[in-house]
C-alpha cells in the first residue's frame, strides 16, 4: 500500500477508518485543532503533531501518549467542554465537534456546576457473557449463540475486532471481513446482546459482571436525544468468557518517560484505526517476534524503522531484515533517550543504543516504540479470585487454574502470544528509569524500598506508589514485579503480583449512582392524605422514609407559634392528626395470645376482646425496642400498633421468632400499615365531633370506655374507633380502609368545623405526649434504656414465666441505682427552652462550670414550650433520676448554666382526669 503523508500532519492517506469527509473542531490547551469522526482525542492530537500533553505529578516532566487505548499510563487530559470531566485518557475519548480539552499536570479538576446528564442501569441474564470482541471473543460468542444460548458480547472499544487491525488474515480472509461476518451472524440471533463501548469493570461472585456502556459522549449533541449518558449493565451469566486480550509490556531504560515513547502495537493501532503515523523516524525496541508486524506496517506507511532487537539472533530476524525501509540491530538495547533539540519540550529526539559489541550510539527518532512482550489481561479473572501463575516464557502472569463458571480464552489466557526474551530493564541510572510513568516512580525508588527492608511487592507498591495511578499499573505492574524480584534476587513466582481490584477502568461516581439521585435517592413514603397536607400548607418532617406533616403554620407563624396554637386547640377544643404512618400488624391464629405474651413485657393474653392495651417490647438484652397499643379484635386476632420508625423492624422481629424459634405456634402475621388510615381526634370536644359523624354509635364514656374499641360504619364503609390517648385528652382514634382516608378526614373536619377542629402535626403530638411523660422510643430512649428506666415497671409482667428480654433485667447492671431514668425537668427561670440533647451536670453553687472532665448526669431527650404549663419543660434521662425529684441541676446551654428542677415525667394532668372528657 503506498501512502502519502498529509501535509502538515502525521495523518497518512489510505489508512484508518475515519470519515475524512467531515471535519471536527476542538481546542487543546487553548489552541484550535481539527480531526475527523472516528478520531480519539489522542489520534487527533498526534495527527496535528501534538506530542506533549501535560506534565507529571511529582517531577513535572513532560508527558505524552504512550498507548492507543486504556492501558495508556500517561496521556491524561481534562475535558472542559461539553462538560468538565477530570483525568480521562486522550486515547480513550472519542472526538466530537466543539470539545475543549486541556492537558494535566497530574490532578484533575471537578466541575463547579451540577452534572445534568442522566445515568442508568440494566439487568441482564444470559447463559454466556463474553467480554472482549477480539478474535477469541467473537468466536466464543458465535459458538454460544449457535448452541442456542442467551449471549451477551461486550467490548470496550468503539468497534469490534480487538487487536485485529484489518491488515492480518483469518481463515484466509482479511480480518476485517472475519469481524464483519461474525457480527452479521450474531445479529441473526434474537437473544444475543452485542454492545460496544462497554467496559466490564468488575467481576463478582456467581457470574455477576458489571459493565459500563458509554452511550452518548461520542455523539453530536443533537443525536444523543434522551438517552442516558452512561449505563451500568449488571449481567448475571451462567458462564463468563474472559476474552480481554493482553496488554503490551514496555522495557525500562533511562529517560523512558519522554513523550513520543509508546507501546509498539499502539503505534500500529494508530495507523490502522486513525491513519496516524506516530513518527517518521521510528525506533522499535523489542525482544520478541510479535512486534515485527508493527515495524512492517509502519515502514509500509512511509516511516523509516530501526528495530533494536534485544535478541542476538533468531529465525524471524531475517524476516524483519527483509522489510523495506527497516533496519535491524540485533543483540542491542536502548539504554536511554535524548530530548528533541528543536521542540525543547522534553519529547524524544533520539534513542541511545548499545549494540552487541558494546558500542553506544544515537539513533535519531521522533517515535520510540517498545515491546517487551505481552501481559494477559487477567483482571476479570483475578476479581473472582482466579489464581495467576508466572509463565517464564511469556514473562508474565497468566490464569493458572480454573474458576467455576469462568473461562479465559485468547491472549488473556496467554494463547497466541509469541515468546521472546524476557527483559524488564536494561542497566542504567536507576533514578531516571521510570517504572510507573504516571506516578514518577523509578527503579531507584524500588531499590530504596528493597534497601529499607521491604520484602513484599505490596510494601514496594505502597512505598513507591507504583500501580496506584489512573491506569492501576496495567502496563507497569508486571515490570515492577520483575524489577523488584531482580533487585531482591528472588524468583518472581515467589514474589507474585499486587492484587487486581475493581474497577478495571475508572468509572464516574454518577454512573454508579445511576438514577438514585434527588427524589429517587430514597423513596419518600406518603400517607393517603399527603396531597391534603400539602394543600393545607404543612411543613413536613422525615421520619424514616415517611414524610409526616410536622405542623401547619398559618401565614406569619413560625413553628413555635404554630405548635403553641395547635397544642392549645387540642387541650381546649379538638384537634386531628394523620397518624397513618404508625406500623400495624395483624396477628391471627389460636396462638396469637401466646406469641404476644412472649413478645411484650406485659400480659396480652388477658386482654379482653373489645379492649386495647399499651405494651412495651424489649430486645433479648432487655432494652426497649418499641412500644404501642395492642387491640384485641377476636379471641384469635389482634392488631399490634408499632411506632412509625419501628414498623418494618418489629414485623421482621416477630416473624423471626415465629419462623425460627417457635414454628409450632399457630399464628400468622401480616403488615396492614397502609391498609388502615388512622386519625386521632383529640381534645375535650372530640366526643361531640365523633358523636356527630358516627351518629349510630353511643360515644358516651359508659358505653365506650377508655382503652376499648368499637366497629361502626360511615357512608357504607366500615370504620373502627378506639379510645386511645397519646395526649391525656379525651380522644378517639378513627381507623378506616385507606381508600376512604380523605373522605373520612373531610367528614371529620366538616363536623369539627364548629368546634374549630385544628389539624395538628407531629411536633404538637410530641409536645402533648411529653407533657404526659409518654416517651418516644428512639427519642427518649437510645437502645440502653429498660422499661423500668422509663418508669414503666408497671408494664412489665411479674406473672409471666418468660418474655423476650426478661432474663436480662436480672443482670448486675440493671440493678444499678445510678441507671438513667426518665424524669421531667423544669428550667427554674421558666423561660429557657433547653435544647434537646443538652447534657445535665450537678448544680454548681457558684454558677460556674468546673473544668473538664465534668461528670455528666444524663441528657435532655425532649424539650418544648408548653401551652398548658405556660412555660418550657423537658424530659431527660438522669442518673438515679426518680430518687432525685425536687433537686436542682444545671444544664449548660451555650456559655450559660441553666438551673432546672427535676420533676416527675408527668407534668400535665397527673391524675388522668381529662382522658374521659
Amino acid at each position, binding site marked *: 500500500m503506498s501512502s502519502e503523508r498529509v501535509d502538515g500532519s502525521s495523518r497518512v492517506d489510505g489508512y484508518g477508518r475515519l470519515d475524512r469527509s467531515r471535519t471536527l473542531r476542538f481546542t487543546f490547551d487553548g489552541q484550535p485543532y481539527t480531526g475527523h469522526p472516528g478520531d480519539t482525542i489522542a489520534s487527533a492530537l498526534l495527527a496535528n503533531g501534538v506530542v506533549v500533553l501535560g506534565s507529571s*505529578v511529582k517531577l513535572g516532566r513532560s508527558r505524552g501518549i504512550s498507548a492507543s487505548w486504556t492501558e495508556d499510563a500517561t496521556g491524561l487530559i481534562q475535558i472542559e467542554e461539553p462538560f468538565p470531566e477530570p483525568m480521562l485518557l486522550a486515547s480513550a475519548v472519542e472526538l466530537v465537534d466543539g470539545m475543549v480539552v486541556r492537558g494535566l499536570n497530574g490532578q484533575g479538576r471537578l466541575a463547579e456546576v451540577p452534572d445534568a446528564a442522566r445515568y442508568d442501569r440494566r439487568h441482564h441474564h444470559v447463559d454466556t457473557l463474553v467480554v472482549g470482541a477480539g478474535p477469541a471473543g467473537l468466536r466464543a460468542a458465535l459458538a454460544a449463540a449457535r448452541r442456542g444460548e442467551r449471549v451477551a458480547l461486550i467490548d470496550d472499544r468503539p468497534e469490534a475486532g480487538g487487536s485485529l487491525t484489518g491488515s492480518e488474515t483469518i481463515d484466509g480472509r482479511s480480518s476485517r471481513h472475519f469481524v464483519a461476518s461474525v457480527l452479521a451472524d450474531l445479529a441473526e440471533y434474537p437473544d444475543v446482546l452485542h454492545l460496544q463501548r462497554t467496559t466490564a469493570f468488575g467481576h463478582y461472585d456467581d457470574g455477576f459482571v*458489571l459493565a459500563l456502556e458509554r452511550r452518548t459522549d461520542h455523539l453530536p449533541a443533537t443525536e444523543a436525544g434522551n438517552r442516558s449518558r452512561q449505563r451500568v449493565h449488571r449481567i448475571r451469566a451462567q458462564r463468563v468468557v474472559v476474552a480481554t486480550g493482553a496488554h503490551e509490556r514496555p522495557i525500562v531504560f533511562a529517560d523512558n518517560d519522554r513523550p513520543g515513547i509508546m507501546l509498539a502495537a499502539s503505534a500500529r493501532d494508530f495507523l490502522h484505526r486513525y491513519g496516524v503515523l506516530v513518527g517518521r523516524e521510528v525506533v522499535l525496541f523489542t525482544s520478541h517476534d510479535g512486534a515485527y508486524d508493527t515495524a512492517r506496517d509502519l515502514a509500509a506507511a512511509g516511516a523509516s524503522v530501526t528495530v533494536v532487537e534485544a535478541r542476538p539472533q533468531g529465525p524471524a530476524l531475517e524476516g524483519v531484515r527483509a522489510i523495506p525501509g527497516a533496519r535491524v540491530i540485533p543483540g542491542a538495547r536502548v539504554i536511554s533517550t535524548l530530548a528533541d533539540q528543536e521542540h525543547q519540550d522534553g519529547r524524544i529526539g533520539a534513542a541511545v543504543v548499545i549494540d552487541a559489541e558494546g558500542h553506544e550510539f544515537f539513533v535519531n527518532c521522533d517515535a520510540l516504540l517498545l515491546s517487551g512482550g505481552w501481559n494477559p489481561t487477567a483482571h476479570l479473572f483475578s476479581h473472582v479470585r482466579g489464581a495467576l501463575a508466572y509463565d517464564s516464557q511469556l514473562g508474565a502472569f497468566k490464569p493458572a487454574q480454573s474458576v467455576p463458571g469462568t473461562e479465559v480464552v485468547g491472549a488473556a489466557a496467554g494463547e497466541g502470544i509469541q515468546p521472546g526474551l524476557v527483559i524488564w530493564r536494561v542497566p542504567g541510572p536507576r533514578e531516571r528509569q521510570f517504572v510507573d510513568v504516571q506516578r514518577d516512580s523509578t527503579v531507584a525508588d524500588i531499590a530504596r524500598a528493597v534497601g529499607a*527492608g521491604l520484602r513484599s511487592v505490596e510494601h514496594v507498591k505502597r512505598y513507591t506508589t507504583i500501580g496506584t495511578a489512573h491506569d492501576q499499573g496495567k502496563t507497569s505492574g508486571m515490570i515492577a514485579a520483575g524489577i523488584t524480584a531482580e533487585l531482591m534476587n528472588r524468583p518472581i513466582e515467589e514474589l507474585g503480583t499486587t492484587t487486581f481490584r*475493581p474497577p478495571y477502568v475508572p*468509572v464516574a461516581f454518577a454512573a454508579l449512582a445511576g438514577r438514585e439521585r434527588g427524589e429517587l435517592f430514597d423513596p419518600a413514603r406518603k400517607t393517603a392524605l399527603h396531597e391534603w397536607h400539602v394543600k393545607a400548607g404543612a411543613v413536613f418532617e422525615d421520619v424514616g422514609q415517611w414524610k409526616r406533616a410536622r405542623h401547619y403554620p398559618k401565614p406569619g407563624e413560625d413553628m413555635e407559634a404554630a405548635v403553641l396554637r395547635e397544642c392549645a386547640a387540642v387541650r381546649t377544643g379538638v384537634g386531628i392528626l394523620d397518624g397513618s404512618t404508625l406500623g400495624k400488624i395483624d396477628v391471627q391464629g389460636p396462638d396469637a395470645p401466646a406469641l404476644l405474651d412472649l413478645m411484650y413485657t406485659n400480659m396480652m393474653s388477658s386482654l379482653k376482646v373489645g379492649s386495647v392495651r399499651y405494651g412495651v417490647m424489649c430486645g433479648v438484652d432487655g432494652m426497649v425496642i418499641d412500644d404501642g397499643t395492642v387491640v384485641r379484635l377476636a379471641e384469635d386476632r389482634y392488631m399490634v400498633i408499632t411506632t412509625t420508625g419501628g414498623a418494618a423492624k418489629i414485623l421482621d422481629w416477630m416473624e423471626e421468632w415465629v419462623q425460627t424459634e417457635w414454628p409450632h405456634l399457630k399464628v400468622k402475621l401480616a403488615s396492614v400499615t397502609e391498609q388502615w388510615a388512622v386519625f386521632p381526634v383529640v381534645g375535650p370536644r372530640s366526643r361531640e365531633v365523633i358523636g356527630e359523624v358516627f351518629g349510630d354509635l353511643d360515644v358516651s364514656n359508659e358505653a365506650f370506655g377508655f382503652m376499648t374499641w368499637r366497629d361502626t360504619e360511615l357512608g357504607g364503609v366500615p370504620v373502627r374507633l378506639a379510645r386511645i390517648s397519646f395526649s391525656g385528652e379525651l380522644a378517639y382514634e378513627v381507623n378506616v380502609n385507606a381508600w376512604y382516608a380523605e373522605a373520612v378526614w373531610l367528614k371529620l373536619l366538616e363536623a369539627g368545623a364548629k368546634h374549630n377542629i385544628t389539624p395538628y402535626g407531629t411536633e404538637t403530638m410530641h409536645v402533648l405526649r411529653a407533657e404526659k411523660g409518654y416517651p418516644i422510643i428512639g427519642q427518649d430512649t437510645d437502645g440502653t434504656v429498660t422499661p423500668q428506666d422509663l418508669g414503666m415497671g408497671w408494664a412489665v409482667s411479674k406473672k409471666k414465666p418468660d418474655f423476650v428480654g426478661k432474663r436480662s433485667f436480672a443482670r448486675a447492671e440493671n440493678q444499678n441505682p445510678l441507671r438513667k431514668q426518665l424524669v421531667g425537668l423544669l428550667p427554674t427561670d421558666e423561660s429557657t427552652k433547653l435544647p*434537646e440533647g443538652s*447534657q445535665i451536670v450537678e448544680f454548681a453553687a457558684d454558677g460556674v462550670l468546673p473544668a473538664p472532665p465534668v461528670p455528666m448526669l444524663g441528657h435532655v431527650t425532649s424539650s418544648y414550650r408548653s401551652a398548658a404549663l405556660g412555660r418550657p419543660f423537658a424530659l431527660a434521662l438522669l442518673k438515679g433520676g426518680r430518687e432525685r425529684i425536687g433537686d436542682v441541676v444545671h444544664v449548660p446551654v451555650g456559655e450559660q448554666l441553666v438551673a432546672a428542677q427535676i420533676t416527675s415525667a408527668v407534668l400535665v394532668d397527673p391524675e388522668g382526669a381529662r382522658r374521659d372528657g
Partner: protein
Amino acid sequence: MTEQPPGAHLPEHADYLWRNPEPKKSYDVVIVGGGGHGLATAHYLAKNHGITNVAVLERGWLAGGNMARNTTLIRSNYLWDESAAIYEHALKLWEGLEEDLDYPILFSQRGVLNLAHTEQDVRDSVRRVEANKLNGIDAEWLGPDEVAKICPIVNISDDIRYPVQGATYQPRAGIAKHDWVAWGFARRADEAGIDLIQDCEVTGFETDGDSVTKVRTSKGDIAAGKVVLCAAGHTSVLLDQLGVRAPLQSHPLQALVSELLEPVHPTIVMSNAVHVYVSQAHKGELVMGAGVDSYNGYGQRGAFHIIERQMAAAVELFPVFARAHLLRSWAGIVDTTPDASAIVGHTPYENVYLNCGWGTGGFKATPGVGWCLADTVANDRPHPYIAPFSLDRFVSGALVDEHGAAAVAH
C-alpha cells in the same frame, strides 16, 4: 513545565525501615498481629517500659490488614465518657506522634463534620457535642450555613431527599497516612531491638494450666512470657484455639478512592443517614467509605451494591463529585461487637491479653490503645482507660453502647 499541583510533593521515606530477622526461640512478650495496634503496642512497650525482648508476629506483610485499608479518619468526638477518654488520649498522642516516631505521618488536622439530616440526628448530635465539651474535647454544633463555610461543596439546599440540618464539628480531627504510621511504629520498634517477623502465622498455643507457654507458628514454636493478641478481624480464629469466647463478628468493610483531583474537599465529612464519608487525601484522591457488608466474611472483599449506594449518597451530598471517578475499591475484615466498642484487657489466661473489636473505627485509637495496652502488659493490671472495655461487660451488662447515640463509627 507547569507548576506542580498541591500534594504532589510528599516527604521522602526513610531509607531504613526494619530488619527481617528470623524468630528467636523465646521472647518476654509475643504480640500476635503486626497491624497498627500490634506495632504501637511494641513501640510503647520499648519506649515507656523498656521491654524490648519482644516479637511481633505477622502472618502476611506488616500492616497489610486493616491498617493498609482504612480510610484514616481520626477523631475523638465519641459520646460516652469511656470512649471519649481513650480516643482523646489517642488524639493527643497523634498530635505529637510525628516527633515521637521521627517519621512523617502526614497527620493533618482538618476537622470532621458529622452531618445531621433528621430531627433525631440533630438531637443525637447536640447530645454528643455537649458531652464532648464537658469531657474537654473540642466540639461544636453548626447550622447548615456554617457547614457550607467549612466545606463549601456540601449540598445544603433544601431540595434534596434528606436536607442537611446541621453538623457536629471537631476541628482537631484529621487524617494521617496510614502506611506511614505503621512504618513509623515499626521502624522505632525495630530500632529498639524488637523483632518484627513477617510471613509468620500463629497457628495455635501451648498452654499450661491457665497460662500460655508457647505460640505455634508457621515458623516453628516460640516460647512467650506474655502473649498479646492484636489480630483484629482474625481474633476469633485465635481465641477458638485458646477455647476463649468473645462476642465478635468479622465483617467485610469496603473503601474506595478516586483519581487525583485538585483540592476540592478541605475537611472530612461523614453522614450517618445518607451513609457515606469522605476526605481528600494528601495526593489528591477522594477516600470514601460506608458501612460493613451485612454478613460475616474473611474474604477482604465486599459486594458492589454497597459501593453503588455509597456513590449515590456521595453525589447527593456533593454534586460536584458526579464526574469524579472510582479508581479502586477494596475491603478489610473488621471485628465488630454487640455494643460497637472494643474489647481490651485480660483474658481467662493470666498471661494472654486481648485487643480486638475495634470494628470500623480502630485506626484512630492506634497510639492510644498501644500506649494503654503496653502499660497493662507491663504492669499486669488494666490501664484505667481500657478498664471499661473488658470482656466481662457483656456478662454484667455494663456496655459502652456507641451504636444508638453516636455517629458512624469510623
